[in-house]
């Protein structure tokens, strides 16, 4: 399956491509007491900004996966360039090649919404240790979305549905992630500076059109769709 919105992020090589950007990532991680012996999985790592930061700052054992070949290649390039020991693998989050209970912390920054949500949550819960945490930043409906708005979001972003907060929590509970905490974030969709970028030499003009459509979508629907940061434990 191809997803042109994700291609946009991959070809432009945009780091911190999630609501709140890298600043939100740093703010969230600051409150986690991550130890050097802990194993952390960054799923849908994109170009690897968060994974690199985790390895550099916390010295922990970082594994990063993504199923987009260009993302994986750019992440690998980054880790090599700055010499951080991150293991990076091209894998599908629906079906991970790790044994059960492998990780103390799993991070998904704007990833799960692009997948089959219940399958992905099951898989992430499987690889999470019994006392581990899953932190996820995900698109969330703020108000009731009309059928038209749902359709538009789904076709533009290649997703199946936009869940609201209660629906996310329900999905998490059904997966056995029973302790769910919502981390406070600013309500507006604040733009982040795009200062971590690694564009491909050839960028198809269609992707600029997608970017325009995305901006247009935010302009008209930004009051209806926002995001949440969930911290979950079993």
């Amino acid at each position: 399956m191809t997803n042109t919105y994700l291609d946009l992020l991959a070809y432009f090589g945009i780091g911190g491509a999630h609501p709140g950007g890298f600043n939100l990532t740093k703010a969230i991680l600051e409150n986690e007491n991550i130890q050097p012996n802990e194993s952390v999985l960054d799923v849908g790592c994109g170009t690897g900004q968060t994974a690199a930061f985790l390895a550099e700052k916390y010295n922990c054992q970082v594994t990063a996966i993504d199923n987009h070949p260009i993302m994986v290649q750019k992440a690998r390039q980054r880790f090599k360039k700055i010499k951080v020991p991150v293991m990076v693998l091209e894998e599908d989050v629906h079906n991970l090649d790790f044994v059960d209970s492998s990780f103390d912390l799993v991070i998904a920054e704007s990833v799960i919404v692009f997948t089959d949500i219940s399958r992905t949550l099951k898989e992430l819960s499987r690889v999470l240790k019994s006392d581990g945490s899953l932190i996820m930043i995900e698109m969330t409906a703020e108000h009731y979305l009309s059928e038209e708005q749902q359709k538009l979001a789904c076709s533009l972003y290649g997703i199946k549905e936009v869940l609201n907060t209660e629906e996310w929590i329900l999905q998490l509970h059904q997966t056995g992630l029973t302790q769910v905490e919502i981390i406070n974030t600013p309500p507006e969709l604040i733009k982040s500076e795009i200062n971590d970028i690694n564009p491909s030499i050839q960028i198809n003009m269609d992707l600029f059109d997608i970017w325009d459509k995305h901006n247009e979508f935010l302009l008209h629907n930004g009051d209806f769709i926002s995001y949440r940061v969930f911290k979950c434990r079993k």
Partner: protein
Amino acid sequence: MNRSDLYNQCCRFNGQRVRITCHDGRVHVGEITRVNRNMVWIRPDENLGGYGLGFFGGYGESGFGFGIALGAIAGIALASAFFW
């Protein structure tokens, strides 16, 4: 990006704040003020604080900022954005 795509892209971003990466690795951030087939002009961010409104002394009298040859440009994108 080839020259004509780049030109079209600069036109499209006219008036917006962009980040331009040059082949030599230099990065310029600012608002596009003018575009032609060979050059794009940007008014860099740092100007806003430093010189006072309306005066862009460091970058010529035109107020267009400074020009970058399209041939020197490796990539161009909006300088800030919101992404899911």
